[in-house]
């Protein structure tokens, strides 16, 4: 069953609790949906155009109904706020046990507003909420903060969501780290938390989640386990998790080699960076990142010091890096050493900064160095140290990350706002055009993958509600040519035909709604989104109904996802974002790949993006001219009040939708 909404105002130190309105549960189900509704509710009273680092911003923590249970799909909590990196809607997802413990304390959603007078942390112990002094935690990294709070409270089972040095120093892409090791990165949640003078939120939950029909819920969980065990992909997930993508992406041509200049890793780099290297040299045991996950794609490792050339520098325990860690530092910066990958993953979650943005910054600087556009003198001037940004220089990457997270020097200051704003500043400093060497979209870093040959992914980057991100609509249909999945989702195999623009926009739109539907349940999307044939959102419904006692159909769940995504879109429309803002960087738009590898020659976003965008808006029921929502479409989703507000602010499409 559902918990309640806990509202904490840091300015007035007032705490209120309220049940979730039944109508909202019906419309938005939970998780991302209710988070978005809470955000919408807040910003219907507050001007959404405020500075995201001002007191008026809100930080919403939420976990959907199936999170924190034994349903077998993990517990992925969402942080929702007005984003800092891209200055638009922002949300961020993380594993870790924090969200589950929040639910076990009886709070499904925590809404934090205002700003604390002094550095503080919130301690939630079941019904009791306390604002505690955090001055002695200042400057501490997230693992140390996590441990210090546990010691202060005197309970080893207290869990935390905290920020590190990056968030305290106002780095706009700072993240929030839960349980001391799982990051809610992208979009700058850590910066929002830092601006609220909030170092951490600690929670102890011993009340548990009441289950409507325990027998049926046990059976539903068991059925889900059986279903997962039967999937061919499950074993691979359990062995390597996302690390298997390195080889797969080398086959399809999606690795961002040397700051997205190439598309595949050379054989010797691949040999050092493929997932089996991690398994054979470092992995000690599998690890579930969040309670209730039956896949456990993460792992625990220990670097002994002899495994790779750099290993002796990074001795110690850590957690398995993900594909995007390897893409950000292994591919983008050409660091061919797995010990370094392990280090960057653990270290960036400890500093609590987004490693995609950091990897992109380092790759960008390395390309500039390679082209002779920045020199040793520049680096000396900006950092006070003789740093050479050659490809593969892990030491230099360490220094850059340190400069930014701790805001130590001029270099840190330049890139405080992320790779795009940093590149703009560098353009001014150097007096030459540099933005063409950056992969960015909407004012922030892209995910570090090569996407020019994949129109669906490129469309996602251009339209994603939280900036430039893949997690709003993950699908492999486009990259691996799954015509069967395309047929199942769209009734047309077109999206599974690779390298053509056909149906790719439609796939983007539908996948956004499907992904949001999973996210409304509070589960991990990892296994499900890659196999929507065997794990459509409908397979989660027996678990949901037996847990909550509320009837739900697959169609209603899909609608909830669609509503959630429409709320996010509406939030951005209120900020003035229209079709003209749905675009990607110059490198992706205009520059065809020098070596297309396994993909057709000359693919670039310019050739197909207009087509896929039009299709995307049409499939969402939005106006293709402006990209704005229509009253007709919103009213069909029972979102009249949203349409009214958008109309008042002139953010609703003026034309009637043509079908």
């Amino acid at each position, binding site marked *: 069953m559902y918990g309640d909404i806990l509202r904490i105002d840091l300015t007035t130190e007032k705490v209120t609790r309220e049940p979730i309105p039944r109508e909202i549960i019906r419309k938005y189900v939970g998780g991302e949906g209710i988070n978005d509704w809470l955000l919408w509710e807040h910003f219907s009273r507050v001007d959404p155009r405020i500075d995201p680092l001002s007191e008026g911003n809100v930080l919403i923590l939420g976990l959907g109904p199936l999170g924190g249970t034994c349903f*077998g799909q*993990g517990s992925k909590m969402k942080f929702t706020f007005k984003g800092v990196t891209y200055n638009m809607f922002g949300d961020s997802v993380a594993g870790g046990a924090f969200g589950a413990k929040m639910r076990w304390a009886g709070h499904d959603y925590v809404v934090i507003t205002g700003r604390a007078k002094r550095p503080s942390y919130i301690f939630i112990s079941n019904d009791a909420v306390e604002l505690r002094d955090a001055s002695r935690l200042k400057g501490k990294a997230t693992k140390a903060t996590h441990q210090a709070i546990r010691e202060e409270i005197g309970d080893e089972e207290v869990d935390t969501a905290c920020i590190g040095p990056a968030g305290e120093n106002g780095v706009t892409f700072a993240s929030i780290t839960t349980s001391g090791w799982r990051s809610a990165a992208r979009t700058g949640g850590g910066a929002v938390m830092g601006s609220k003078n909030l170092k951490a939120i600690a929670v102890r939950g011993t009340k*548990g*989640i009441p289950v409507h029909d*325990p027998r049926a819920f046990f059976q539903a*969980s068991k059925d889900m386990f059986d279903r997962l065990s039967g999937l061919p992909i499950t074993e*691979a997930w359990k062995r390597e998790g996302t690390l298997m993508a390195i080889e797969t992406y080398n086959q399809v041509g999606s690795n961002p080699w040397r700051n997205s200049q190439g598309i595949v890793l050379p054989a010797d780099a691949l040999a050092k960076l493929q997932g089996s290297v991690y398994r054979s040299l470092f992995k000690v045991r599998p690890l579930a990142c969040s309670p209730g996950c039956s896949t456990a794609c993460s792992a625990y490792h220990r670097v002994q010091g002899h495994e790779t050339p750099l290993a002796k520098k990074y001795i110690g325990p850590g957690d398995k890096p993900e594909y995007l860690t390897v893409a950000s530092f292994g591919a983008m910066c050409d660091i061919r050493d797995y010990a370094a990958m392990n280090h960057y993953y653990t270290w960036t979650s400890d500093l609590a900064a987004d490693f995609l943005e950091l990897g992109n910054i380092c790759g960008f600087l390395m390309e500039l160095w390679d082209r002779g556009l920045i020199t040793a003198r520049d680096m000396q001037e900006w950092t006070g140290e003789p740093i050479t940004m050659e490809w593969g220089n892990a030491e230099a990457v360490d220094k850059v990350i340190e400069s930014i997270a701790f805001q130590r020097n001029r270099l840190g200051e330049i890139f405080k706002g992320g790779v795009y704003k940093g590149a703009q500043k560098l353009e001014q400093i150097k007096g030459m055009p540099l933005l063409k060497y950056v992969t960015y979209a909407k004012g922030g870093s892209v995910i570090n993958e090569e996407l020019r040959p994949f129109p669906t992914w490129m469309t996602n980057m251009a339209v994603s509600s939280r900036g430039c991100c893949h997690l709003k609509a993950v699908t492999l249909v486009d990259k691996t040519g799954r015509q069967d999945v395309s047929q199942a989702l769209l009734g047309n195999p077109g999206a599974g035909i690779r390298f053509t623009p056909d149906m790719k926009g439609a796939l983007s739109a539908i996948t956004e709604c499907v992904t949001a539907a999973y996210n409304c349940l509070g589960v991990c999307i990892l296994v499900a989104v890659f196999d929507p044939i065997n794990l459509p959102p409908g397979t989660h419904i027996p678990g949901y109904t037996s847990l909550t006692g509320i009837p739900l159909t697959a169609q209603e769940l899909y609608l909830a996802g669609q509503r959630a995504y429409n709320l996010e879109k509406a939030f951005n429309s209120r900020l003035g974002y229209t079709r003209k803002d749905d675009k990607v960087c110059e490198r992706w738009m205009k520059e065809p790949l020098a070596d297309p590898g396994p993909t057709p020659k000359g693919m670039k976003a310019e050739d197909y993006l207009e087509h896929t965008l039009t299709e995307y808006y049409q499939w969402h029921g939005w106006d293709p001219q402006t990209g704005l929502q229509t009253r007709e479409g919103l009213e069909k989703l029972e979102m009249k009040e949203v349409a009214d507000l958008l109309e008042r602010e002139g953010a609703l499409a003026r034309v009637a939708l043509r079908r």
Partner: protein
Amino acid sequence: MPVTARGAAQVLLPAPSVTKKLVALPGTCCGCNICEMVCSLTHTGSVNPYQARVKVTMVREEGHIEPIICQHCNPAPCEISCPTKALFFAANLPGVVLLDNSKCIKCYRCVQACPFGAIQVSPRGEILKCDLCGGDPACVQLCQERPEFKPEGWTGGKVSTLQFLEPHQVTLLKRMLRIAQPKDHQPPAHEFGANL
């Protein structure tokens, strides 16, 4: 009555279910806490690890994760230490120690007596004692399969951390695991992107 060949075979066969042991395979637990959640679900009707009879201990920095489970010892230190006979050997399930909550006086002697730390105490101070779910433990049913640990030739069903097996199968599985756990294994020929 003379013992027939058939009877002799029956003597050698283990008795059904009750001789089975609930064990945790070392080094395989991934800390998903599902055993705790499903234990509380089946015993209290809510998902709450604080009401579970099984407890996953985790020291993340050392990579130590281990479910602590009741071994149903015989003789059982908890049963011996209980002054009110609230803990007793079940009549219908030989070898299974059960708790009669109505007799429990919350002296926690059993907690002290248990050599494994397997007797849990709820936040309200109640003793939580594993009852093997009457012979089909729910935690084992939902303990996730780990195919990467499955030894070649193992025919005893899914390989997961929690196992409910005949004692001889437990030793066999552990022996096979030790042999079949190479650190350096080749990447699997998996299905991911197979239709490229």
